[in-house]
């Protein structure tokens, strides 16, 4: 059982990290960025391609991938969001345009095989791969009868540290204050001299960098890197997590992530098999009925 709780904490960390980026964009821009799961996937794919195809050591590769994903966030802002905002399009249009970008990102990877335009990025088409053995040292520790893998420990520490840093940035820095001001009231923030477009761009960069990091950690821990990992494994769950935690709330996303991990694993241990996803989404449904604003949702009074 203790081992299963550890399993829950590890997968919960990844859900949380993914959901934090998801909820950040929603909190600030009022838009669900459905390309977030594709950026998650690209975080894993870019790191893999740097390590396996271009011989870059893991840590620099991971760093480059995170920055690249941040830049993809800017691409999402400039291509899918900003033009629509300029035209005062309703949020649903932005949602659709991010789905479009997600499809394009996935298709690029899915179609990339040796000899194609994107073979520098990916060569395995629809297949899943793992990091080459030895590329990432993964010591395994046995403590009190529990098996703890180095990579999973790394994930836990990285997630917690990053979430704390993000919390600090949002609460106590100039950027954080500006973010919160924009989230609160876009027009008032503009009147106060905050450059809203720049805040939006920073938000997308930050959110996508976190999403990419979650993706590469997922690839590392689960040994599953492929074009569908975002769409199949975290997209809906991420959505569930941020609804559970309260749309736009960062502590909510963190708690929601761990809660979903825990619910899933416990449901699996207790009921087994396919009930797992059912139980997770039943919990979500209950939450919506009992407390529609989510765990930390402040009824839109204060966000982030």
């Amino acid at each position: 059982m203790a081992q299963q709780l550890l399993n829950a904490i590890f997968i919960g960390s990844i859900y949380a990290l993914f959901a934090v980026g998801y909820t950040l964009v929603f909190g600030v821009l009022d838009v669900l960025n459905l390309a977030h799961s594709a950026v998650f996937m690209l975080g894993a794919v870019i790191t893999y391609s740097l390590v396996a195809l271009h011989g870059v050591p893991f840590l620099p590769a991971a760093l480059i991938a995170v920055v690249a994903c941040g830049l993809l966030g800017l691409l999402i802002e400039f291509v899918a969001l900003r033009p629509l905002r300029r035209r005062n399009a309703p949020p649903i249009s932005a949602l659709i345009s991010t789905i479009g970008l997600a499809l394009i990102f996935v298709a690029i990877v899915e179609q990339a095989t040796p000899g194609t335009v994107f073979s520098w990025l990916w060569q395995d088409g629809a297949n899943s791969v793992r990091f080459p053995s030895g590329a990432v040292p993964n010591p395994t520790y046995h403590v009190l009868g529990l098996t703890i893998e180095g990579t999973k420990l790394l994930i836990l520490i990285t997630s917690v540290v990053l979430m704390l840093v993000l919390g600090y940035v949002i609460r106590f820095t100039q950027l954080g204050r500006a973010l919160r001001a924009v989230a609160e009231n876009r027009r008032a923030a503009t009147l106060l001299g905050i450059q809203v477009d720049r805040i939006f761009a920073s938000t997308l960069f930050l959110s996508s960098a976190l999403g990419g990091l979650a993706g590469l950690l997922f690839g590392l821990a689960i040994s599953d890197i492929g074009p569908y990992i975002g769409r199949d494994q975290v997209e809906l769950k991420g959505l569930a997590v941020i609804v559970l935690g309260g749309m736009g709330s960062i502590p909510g996303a963190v708690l929601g992530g761990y809660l979903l991990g825990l619910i899933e694993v416990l449901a699996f241990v207790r009921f087994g098999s396919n009930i797992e996803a059912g139980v997770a989404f039943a919990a979500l449904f209950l939450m919506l009925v009992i407390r529609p604003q989510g765990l930390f949702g402040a009824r839109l009074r204060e966000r982030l």
Partner: protein
Amino acid sequence: MRTGARAIVVGLALALTACGGSSSTGASSSNSYQGKTIQLGAILSLTGAGGVYGPSSQKGMQLAVDKINNSGGVNGAKIALDVRDDASDKIQSAQVAQTLIQQGQLLALLGPTLSNSAVAVHPLAESFKIPILAVSTTGIHIVPDCNFPKTDPCTYVFRDSLGEETAIPTNIKVYAAKSHPTTGVLMVANDDKFSSDGGKIVANTVGQYGIQLLDTVAFSKTIADFSAPVTKAVQKHPDVIFITSLGGIPAKIMIEARKQGFTGQFLGGNGFNTAVVSNQAGADGKGAESGSAWYLNNTFPSNADFVRNYRSKYGNDPDQFAAQGYAAILILADAAKRANLTFSDTPGDRTKLRDAMEKVNIQTPLGPFQFTSTHDVKQTVWVIAMDGHGGFTLVQSVNPS
């Protein structure tokens, strides 16, 4: 382009009919084939979960098509292969099949890749009376009872892929005789026909070899993290973990189980038999055994030629799915050659082709090939083991009883 080609074919057929040249005897059939096109359609999973298998099937088929077309075709008729992706989705698979069938000119279909999709596609082909040759489906109730639970045989459905009902018991038998395991845990994806069929076969087989199934860990093929199911299995300390699942899942389970300290044996089904899975599992998969329809290093000429040509065309090694795809085209070509096709009466030609397929007896990369009376394959089972580097070694070959 395609419509143009079809128009020419139809035009030629009409011209021939107008001339009264209705050659009906086998001897003169080769002339009426000249310049014609034998149109085949394949429904494969090129993307999605089955994307591990579909592209291999496609490459194998294309290799055979090119080989036949470049050496004079089938009595002078060229083969045209139209490959469509079903994205590993049952409903999409049925839609693609419907589209292909309604185009009207196809002589036969190949596929679909997954047993799960075959349940939807095969009855469709049967009802339209178009021969369909499954190239990778290994589940239960594929042939002859494609309309299961109805038991009347489907007369247009064939398969050249070795069923799990043969492969898994053979695999277990070979391993039991060698290592005498006493306990096992079955890990099975229970929301997929191929996987759950495999699980049933394992559960029904282990008893007769003295292996006690300590637990059956069922999971959904859609889950991301296999650590929880694997923990459940590993904590029973079994001698063997049986894995019946598809796509990258067997590899992910092996990796996770080794991380959690499992040192026993992995046995499994057809889901193991591709280089992609062996590659993803890497060193963690080394020694994992499965029953396969084909083995890379077999040296009989029909396989050696296939492997050599495949390597020179694609630059890498074929796998079982490529071999079965390749064999499928050889089978259809051989049947078409003997079927005395008219190229004007498509429904009639389809039935003629079906009749000829039942009498196929040729050499393929899988070995000598014939269909059983129920349209299933009867062939040698090659028990293979992952070598830890993306390939396989031969453990033992078992001839059909």
